[in-house]
């Protein structure tokens, strides 16, 4: 059983509780154990870095140091948390003076940021550590009947200088995973585009237009549902779906699943167990 430190994303503790619930169901089936870091703090959601760049470095150095203390990599299941914490890590690795300043403060808790733990998305762990061949063998309920529109979201792809796993122009990791689960992933323009989440409360109309365009294309391509590795994208594409479509004079609906839920479905768990019934848009 390979162990990882698991970062508690705020949204998965609140609106999208089904993400962690579904991961807990199947993690041992795939030989991994995600140990929740209850001491971790909000990463700042891609906002803290300009409110206070130094507090941003401190909070996320602490988040990573908590994982380093256990000798584990830090695994994240929210794209924005991933990008945010990796951005902080890059700064801490490149700026020794900042690292020293932060570590002097972290000594309070007997913590030290050393840069020894990697910060990775759950999707990357499934592909790189568990392996697609192992996943293929564990599939009990292949998703062969589904045409799925993969929606990567921005912060697992861009900035590529911070993320680096996929080519942001032609990402393949989620497609590869869906293929291992037996599903057919459809090619469509929006798979590497934005969901509009980060402006929902500041420029709502723009966000609704952004989301509607993605939903419309997935529906036009006759996808059975959208899958995303990011709970923020899910919140817009599922929770705001009716509002976004109505705002743009569009009809129809399309379910949106979390990455952790499609893995669970393929491994034989039910929609109810996985929390899929909690979505706003259900099939």
């Amino acid at each position, binding site marked *: 059983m390979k162990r990882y430190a698991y970062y508690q994303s705020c949204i998965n503790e609140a609106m999208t509780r089904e993400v962690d619930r579904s991961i807990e169901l199947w993690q041992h089936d795939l030989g991994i154990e995600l140990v929740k870091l209850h001491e971790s*703090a909000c990463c700042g959601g891609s906002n803290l870095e300009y409110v206070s760049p130094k507090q941003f470095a401190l909070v996320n150095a602490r988040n990573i140091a908590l994982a380093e203390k256990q000798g584990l990599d830090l695994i994240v299941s929210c794209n924005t948390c991933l990008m945010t914490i990796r951005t902080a890590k890059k700064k801490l690795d490149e700026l020794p003076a900042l690292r020293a300043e932060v570590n002097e403060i972290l000594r309070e808790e007997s913590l030290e940021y050393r840069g020894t733990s990697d910060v990775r998305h759950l999707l990357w762990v499934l592909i790189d550590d568990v392996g697609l061949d192992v996943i293929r063998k564990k599939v009990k309920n292949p998703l062969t009947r589904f045409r799925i529109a993969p929606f990567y979201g921005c912060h697992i792809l861009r900035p590529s200088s911070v993320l680096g796993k996929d080519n942001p122009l032609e990402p393949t990791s989620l497609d590869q995973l869906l293929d291992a689960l037996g599903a057919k992933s459809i090619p469509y323009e929006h798979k590497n585009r934005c969901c509009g989440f980060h402006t929902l409360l500041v420029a709502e109309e723009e966000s609704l237009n952004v989301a509607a365009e993605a939903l419309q294309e997935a529906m036009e391509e006759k996808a059975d549902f959208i899958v995303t590795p990011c709970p923020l994208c899910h919140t817009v594409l599922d929770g705001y779906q009716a509002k976004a479509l109505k705002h743009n004079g569009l009809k129809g609906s399309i379910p949106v699943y979390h990455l952790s839920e499609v893995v669970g479905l393929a491994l034989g768990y039910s929609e109810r167990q996985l929390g899929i019934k909690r979505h706003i848009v259900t099939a």
Partner: protein
Amino acid sequence: MSDSTIQHHEESRDVTFRVHRFNPQVDSKPYFDDYTIKLEKGITVLRALNYIKEHVDSTVTFRAFCQAGICGSCAMRINRMSKLACTTQVWDELDKTREPGVITIEPLRNLPLIKDLVVEMDPLVGKMKQHSNWVDSKMAEENWGWKEFLISEEEFLTYDKATDCILCASCVSECTILRANKEYVSPAVLLKSYRMNADSRDAIHDQRLAGLVQDHGVWDCTHCYRCQETCVKNIPIMGAIHGIREDAIERRGTKDSSGARHAEAFMDDIEKKGRLVEATLPIRTNGLAWTLRNLLPMAVKMIIKRRTPPPPPLVKASKGIQSLRKELKEMASHVAKDHEKKSGE
């Protein structure tokens, strides 16, 4: 090894350019023309387009000038990404085609189309004028041309990369928010504004900043990083956008706009609970009336599905919050000292 990979290693081969065509005087809608030409390895997309114009179809219309990645005239979408035709190797693009051997060439997005691959730059220039994207000098006019106006190397390094911008509008073409609303300020204008506001020779910093925090301004960026990813000069454009926001919070406070209030809420919650209190985030960003008007119907659906975030008293503080608070306080004193030092300079 696929056919395209084998061909990719060849020194010369047939390449098809699928070029976007539209002449508003004749065509009711845009279409694509395929031009297949034999090319040698090492040729750029611009040279290929010039060849097509000279030898195959003289009506194909595009803009180009310097042929050296300096003037920014030949930006276009090549295989679905905005970039300069003159610095893009055909052979590199053969790896990125959806159909083997077929390179798609389209005009930039988010700007009005004039013909084929040529777009109207006036909306961008208009926004640059609106936000005074030039240094409005502090020096008295009678000294212009007589006195030097020196800046420190340290200062220059803060906007060195930003001065690399050649206004090719690739970032404008790929911007998510501009696609959703053409009134949005756009990444290139934010980059230039950041650069001018960081310049100590400039006299209108506060006025420029006041313009940037208005509707359709700096707070409307959705952090998708598409601008930065597409930039032909590798300029960290999001860093400039964050720089304007940091400056706005520092100079104008956190109550100034919904964007600033939204950002401040993250800092507040981290200090109080170590995690975000999502239930009150819309109210803290936009007030109660906006929240009721905009989010009530959705809140009802969310309550039915038990998706609502817990009310503030039920948000459990993260373990070790006492230590975190102490550490944040300690860092706050470092930040205060930094500010003192900066204002003393």
